């Protein structure tokens, strides 16, 4: 054994050494470089041998190296690792690597050789540094996120907790925490939910995720905190063996959530109250106008009767006004009730062309006739089924809106085109009402069907909401054409009679 070792040549040892080694002659030239050195410095063997050793160090060290070489040749001695400062070697590609260098003089008869061993310090230090940074980062992140780490080993029934977990449960630093003690701290109302979450995690068919929220009573100070635990179950041979995860104090989050919930509920109540107030105000306005007129007409009539000379024309006009305004008030009420209750309606077979013509007549009688109707009817369209009054109402509402829009834009007696055709897509009668008014901007277009939405200072804001409800009650749809560049275009459909 010893004998065979003695037979090993220097060259063989040199070549297999794990550390990077160079053999330098007295003139400072590389005689040999082992494989590790070739790899470290990235030189092929043929190129490194014969190289002046100063070529293997950064320029700034070369002068100093000459002095060092001179001193060394006068008094060659071993220099161990780590005795000097950090040195740099120059790789073939010009990259500097930090190295620790050991020198071992080898005296032969002919000359002085020096064995140079290079230990790269970069990698070791970098690895150590990386580990330290990573641990620090994890620690900081845990701290910042308020995360506690737990690790339950089911095989050995051991529960590992970090400081934060102990803090949450109020356990002493070195005290071992039994599973039972862990459970006792959990709020009784939350135990079942936590257990269910655990069962899901244990389920071999599942993905092993554990996710639970529960209250923990701190054993130390008795305070109650909300905790969110997230973990991953590990399995061995089809058995859950280990649950590792993090727990977080979410008490503040929970109280914020509660506050938000309360706030939402409050906002909703407020909104409901507002809608109710708006409804009442709209109804009040809608009724007050005819009432005001009826009151004035009635007093006019009374005054006529009390006068010495009776003007029958005035009396007639006043009483007629009373009747009309009473009718109007009643109709407003019925419409609102119809919208709110949507009672049963009688549907009959109707010629939609006729309904359009009737609606035009009603619009004119109601004072919305200030337009130039352009009718495009389809004489061959099949009969539809629906409630005549309601479909008329939808049409009158659309005409009234169109007239008011054009009036608002000071465009008197503009054309309104009404088109009746068959919509083959849904197989229904399709009616289009298009005005030449200013159209609607995008924001308003998105809201026109909302109840109580109005752009008119005297409007109740129910017209289109009611119209849509009426159309739907008749089995059709009412919508606004997205293109409002040439005035507003409304479409509605009514199903054909079977």
């Amino acid at each position, binding site marked *: 054994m010893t004998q065979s070792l003695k037979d090993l040549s220097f060259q063989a040892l040199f070549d297999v050494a794990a550390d990077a080694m160079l053999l330098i002659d007295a003139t400072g030239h590389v005689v040999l470089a082992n494989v590790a050195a070739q790899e470290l410095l990235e030189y092929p063997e043929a190129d490194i041998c014969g190289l002046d050793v100063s070529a293997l160090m950064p320029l700034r060290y070369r002068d100093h190296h000459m002095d060092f070489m001179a001193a060394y040749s006068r008094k060659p001695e071993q220099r161990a690792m780590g005795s000097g400062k950090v040195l740099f070697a120059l790789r073939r590609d010009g990259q500097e690597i930090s190295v620790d260098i050991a020198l071992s003089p080898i005296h032969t008869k002919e000359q002085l050789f020096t064995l140079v061993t290079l230990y790269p310090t970069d990698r070791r230090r970098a690895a150590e540094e990386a580990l330290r940074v990573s641990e620090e980062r994890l620690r900081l992140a845990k701290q910042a996120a308020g995360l506690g780490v737990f690790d339950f080993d089911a095989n050995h029934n051991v529960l590992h907790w970090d400081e934060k977990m102990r803090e949450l449960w109020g356990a002493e630093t070195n005290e071992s925490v039994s599973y039972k003690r862990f459970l006792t701290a959990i709020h009784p109302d939350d135990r079942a939910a936590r257990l269910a979450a655990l069962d899901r995690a244990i389920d071999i068919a599942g993905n092993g995720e554990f996710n639970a929220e529960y209250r923990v009573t701190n054993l130390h100070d008795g305070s109650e905190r909300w905790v969110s635990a997230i973990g991953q179950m590990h399995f061995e041979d089809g058995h859950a063996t280990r649950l590792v995860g993090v727990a977080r104090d979410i008490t503040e989050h929970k109280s914020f959530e509660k506050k938000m919930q309360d706030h939402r509920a409050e906002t909703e109540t407020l909104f409901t109250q507002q809608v109710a107030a708006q409804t009442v105000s709209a109804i009040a*306005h809608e009724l007050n106008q005819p*009432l*005001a007129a009826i009151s004035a*007409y009635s*007093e006019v009539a009374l005054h006529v009767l009390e006068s010495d000379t009776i003007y029958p024309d005035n009396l007639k006009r*006043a009483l007629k*006004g009373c009747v009309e305004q009473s009718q109007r008030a009643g109709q407003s009420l019925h419409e609102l009730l119809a919208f709110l209750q949507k009672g049963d309606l009688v549907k009959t077979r109707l010629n939609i062309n006729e309904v359009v013509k009737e609606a035009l007549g009603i619009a004119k009688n109601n004072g919305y006739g200030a337009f130039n109707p352009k009718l495009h009817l389809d004489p061959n369209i099949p009969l539809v089924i629906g409630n005549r009054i309601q479909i008329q109402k939808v049409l009158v509402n659309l005409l009234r809106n169109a007239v*008011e829009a054009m009036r*608002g834009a000071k465009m008197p007696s503009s054309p309104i085109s009404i088109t009746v055709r068959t919509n083959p897509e849904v197989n229904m009668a399709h009616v289009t009402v298009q005005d030449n008014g200013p159209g609607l901007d995008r924001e308003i277009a998105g809201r026109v069907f909302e109840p109580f939405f109005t752009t008119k200072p*005297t409007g109740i804001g129910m017209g289109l909401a009611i119209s849509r409800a009426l159309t739907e009650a008749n089995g059709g749809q009412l919508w606004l054409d997205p293109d409002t560049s040439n005035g507003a275009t409304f479409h509605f459909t009514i199903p054909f009679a079977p």
Partner: protein
Amino acid sequence: MMNISDAIVFIVDDEAAIRDSLTLMIAQENIAVKAYGSAESFLAACQAERFGCAVIDIRMPGMDGMQLQDALSKRNILMPVIFLTGHGDIPMSVKAMKAGAVDFLTKPVTRERLLNSVRAAIQESEKILQQSANHKDAQSRLAELTDREQDVMMLAIQGYPNKEIARHLGISHRTVEIHKSKIMFKTGATNLLDLARIAHESGLNN
């Protein structure tokens, strides 16, 4: 004295039935009425210094009642305004009254209430027009005065005796007397008190 039969009541309301019924009601009192369906159409037809008043609905499409009142005063149309509103909104009525409305009536309004208000507004209109006429008259009279005569007048209506005025302006007592008689002649004032009134009406204070 103006006659109530010369006054016109302008009704501005977008509701046809309100316009119609109120027109009938006021016409029964033999007061002339003109009704308009919008603030804009009324404004276009409205003349300054018209004897009468306006009954204006607060809530109207386009220009509303408050904006109309504002537009009238900007155009120097001195017409008393009575507001009509669907609901008696107190902050709104306070604002309207501050802006010079004569009255603020809630619909439905009784015949008595409306007519009282209209009559008061017509009286107010008469007063306004009279003041306006006086003002113009006084201004035109004072326009005849020379600068020196104006100086003398200002001192005279403050009650300074002629001697004082003469000393103050560095002129003779006699010259002051001549200026004063010219002032009285040009303004048509009968005495110093009358002269003070004219100066006040023309907008000259102190």
